[in-house]
């Protein structure tokens, strides 16, 4: 692997890396990547605060903290923000930062489009949140926005929470489609000489798979929402059941995107595991080709599983059976991934730094999320727990306990590369343990609650469910607290952290061969790739730099 340690571009003497740059309309993929990540983290905090209000309401059976319309608005906006303004755009941000570096490109294929994709998001997000200020509040029909309930609006108010919700999500969707065009083009056409598909890191494979899904499936959601907007504001009857419209068609269009959306969120997380686990176990990624191809496999199979969200939606038996089988088949490529990660760790030399803790914790918790997912694909069982807290628990084991943990792993892992500074390891570990305990305390109780029949989205409940709800609420507050050491660590380390070398983890991958942070055009000269990825196990290939962060410590 080519190294470029001779580049002496540091944040101080490179005007391109001036902090003001991060507040400008830059076309540099690294600046845009950081802009995405910082902005989405702010939305994560807002979404988290809404979740804590929800958990505060649910700590007692009665409705006594927020009134029912506000509660409905809280869970609607919590789900919407976390999906559309945290995980999906955060993944776009980290992918923006890393993909060109990982494939040896100077920038994304369409830098201006890239900047526009980002700058659509802040106004869309602000628009969405501003709907709390409307006289009749924000959208209240859940992040699914199923008609006809989403069409029950205050009479005579064309600008209402639901209208704002639809407009924001359509805009965010347009941003995602523009991003997807850019990612797919970049990965296909901008790879460095020698960077064949089977030399690409699994992270790049998973970004490619996720972005292909965006291209194929997202237009379906956009179309559904535009029809919903017409029903809402212009008197059409696409989804109005009492006027010969069909609300079930909306569910098909909605889930045709929103099920694959789970993989659009999860695939980059799987890619992060594939980068972090080998680096901290000093092993090559076990079964690299299988894991790479499994990314595409997940993408392809996941296009054909959407009806499993609709097993109880007046869905005929044959369709239930067909989609039961296809949904279960997703377990095959995801299983390949989980086995590959475990085999990578097996017989290794483990270093349990913060990124590794988050990656291993996330991978372990993914197993519970995945297994409950296979359970839910089994129609007779799904019919019992559909729309109960079992679904909420399963879903959060995926989106928080797996994906958000992976996101934290990524932030810690690439923090030295992005900022040129090391984070504080001790605070990182505090953050990990608070998050790991808090996440399990919050989301595990939801599984028994669902099995017992507690319905999701209720603002008051039968007192027999209170025990598990108290645990979940305490866990939720602990999760809220857990971000404080993270924020302190990131801000403190950014200002005062120890200077990082180019490759503090002695990791393989092109991004570690350039400076920390990388210069404007990423590499002094475009590297030529001659070796397989993850060559940790081969002494002749491994890059051990004598002047690294860890060596300096000695």
């Amino acid at each position, binding site marked *: 692997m080519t190294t470029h340690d001779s580049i002496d571009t540091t944040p101080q003497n490179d005007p391109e890396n001036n902090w003001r740059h991060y507040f400008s309309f830059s076309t540099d993929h690294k600046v845009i990547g950081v802009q995405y990540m910082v902005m989405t983290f702010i939305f994560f905090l807002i979404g988290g605060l809404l979740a804590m209000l929800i958990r505060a309401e649910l700590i007692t059976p009665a*409705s006594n*903290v927020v*009134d*029912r*319309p506000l509660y*409905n*608005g809280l869970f609607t906006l919590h789900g919407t923000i976390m999906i559309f303004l945290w995980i999906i755009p955060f993944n776009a941000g980290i992918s923006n930062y890393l993909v060109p570096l990982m494939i040896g490109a100077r920038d994304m294929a369409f830098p201006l489009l890239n900047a526009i994709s980002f700058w659509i998001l802040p106004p869309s997000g602000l628009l969405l949140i501003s709907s709390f200020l409307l006289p009749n509040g924000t959208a209240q029909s859940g992040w699914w926005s*199923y008609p*006809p*309930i989403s069409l029950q609006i205050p*009479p005579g108010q064309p600008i209402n929470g639901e209208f704002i919700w639809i407009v924001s999500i359509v805009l965010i969707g347009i941003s995602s489609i523009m991003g997807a065009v850019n990612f797919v083009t970049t990965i296909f056409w901008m790879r460095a000489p020698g960077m064949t598909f089977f030399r690409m890191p699994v992270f790049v494979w998973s970004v490619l798979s996720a972005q292909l899904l965006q291209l194929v499936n997202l237009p379906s959601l956009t179309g559904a929402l535009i029809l919903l907007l017409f029903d809402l504001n212009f008197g059409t009857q696409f989804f109005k059941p*009492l*006027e010969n419209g069909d609300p*079930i068609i909306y569910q098909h269009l909605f889930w045709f995107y929103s099920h694959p959306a789970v993989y659009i969120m999860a695939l980059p997380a799987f890619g992060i595991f594939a980068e972090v686990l080998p680096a901290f176990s*000093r*092993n*090559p990624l*076990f079964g*690299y*080709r299988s894991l790479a191809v499994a990314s595409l496999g997940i993408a392809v199979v996941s296009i054909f599983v959407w009806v499993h969200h609709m097993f*109880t*939606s*007046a*869905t*005929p*038996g*044959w369709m*239930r059976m067909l989609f*039961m089988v296809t949904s279960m*088949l997703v*377990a095959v490529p995801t*299983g*390949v991934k989980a*086995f590959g990660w*475990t*085999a990578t*760790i097996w*017989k*290794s*030399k*483990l*270093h*349990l730094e913060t990124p590794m803790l988050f990656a*291993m914790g996330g991978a372990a918790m993914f*197993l519970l999320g995945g297994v*409950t997912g*296979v359970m839910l*694909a089994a129609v*007779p*069982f799904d019919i*019992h727990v559909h*729309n109960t807290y079992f679904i909420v628990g399963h879903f959060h084991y995926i989106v928080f306990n797996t994906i958000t943990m992976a996101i934290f792993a990524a932030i810690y892992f690439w923090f030295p590369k992005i900022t040129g500074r090391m984070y504080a390891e001790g605070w990182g570990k505090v953050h990990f343990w608070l998050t790991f305990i808090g996440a399990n305390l919050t989301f595990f109780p939801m599984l028994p609650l669902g099995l017992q*029949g507690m*319905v999701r*989205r209720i*603002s008051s409940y039968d007192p027999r469910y209170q025990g598990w709800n108290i645990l979940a609420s305490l866990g939720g507050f602990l999760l809220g607290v857990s971000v404080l050491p993270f924020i302190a660590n990131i801000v403190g380390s950014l200002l005062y952290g120890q200077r990082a070398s180019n490759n503090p983890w002695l990791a393989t991958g092109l991004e570690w061969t350039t400076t920390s942070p990388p210069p404007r055009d990423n590499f002094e000269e475009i590297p030529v790739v001659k070796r397989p990825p*993850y060559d*940790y*196990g081969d002494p002749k290939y*491994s890059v051990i730099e004598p002047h690294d962060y860890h060596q300096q410590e000695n």
Partner: protein
Amino acid sequence: MSRFLEYFLIASYIAVLLVISHWIGAQAYSWLPVEATAEAQKVDSLFSFLTAIGAFIILGLVGMMVYSVLFFRAPKNDYSEGHPSRGDIKLEVLWTAAPTLLVLWVAWQGFNIYQQLDILGLQQVVHLHTPLEEPASAASISDIPKPADETIEVFVKQWDWSFRYPNNVTSNELHLPVNRRTRLNMHAKDVLHSFYVPEFRLQQYIVPGRDIDLVVTPTRMGEYKLKDALFSGTYFALMDANVHIESLEEYNQWLTTAEQQPLAIKNQAVAEYTQPPKTLLKTGWYTVAPEPPAIAQSAPPKRLTANERKVMNDDT
């Protein structure tokens, strides 16, 4: 010899895991509510089977991770290579084929149990009643509703359930005779709702404008709660109704009594709409006003259009 020992230990671990996961699968029954229908027993056995398989996979892989954390730690600052193996084609084929067979097995079990449930029939769930949907002659066989001993009509609206019995008695309590196949013919008035009694292990969305059938066979006498499982607006959490499973004699007696004296009908949503509970944060945002319950319905409710639906603004 050391390799033999390693294989022996792995085989022993798998054997222990099989015993533990089988035990966990047996425990799974106790995590669920009581079984009140014939269908519930079958769903629970599927859940137990899925839990056993899931426990085996989770414990197997998490066990390997924990073992690695305990025994494969690198000395500090030792960044040399761990193990040079990049893959093993036999192992990779094995761990692709094994889950494939496993999920096909699970799907087969799911299919069998679904057929045994026989709640809707595999051919047809929904009878579309739109003018465009003329019955096709070829579809006649699959359209025949499954036979049942009893048919009860279920009406649901924001935010109230009501049930009409064969003798035209209307109540907001669901009474079901034990051990008899009962057809629930369900109608929604305004938005989507979902019929769900956790002890029945059955759930079904009710779509306005469609007649949707669900056939249940209650097996355990007692009192249960019917819930609306699909979010239906402001007073969604109050969408409960009592379900009584009783002997045929008690059921018939209740029907006779109810026929003679009108039942007191209460609606929690209406009560809360007129007297909202005290909450820390109060917005007074718009809500659809719940309609006061009708006393008795002797004729099927006519389908309302959107203009006829009464929508009031909450000025509080």
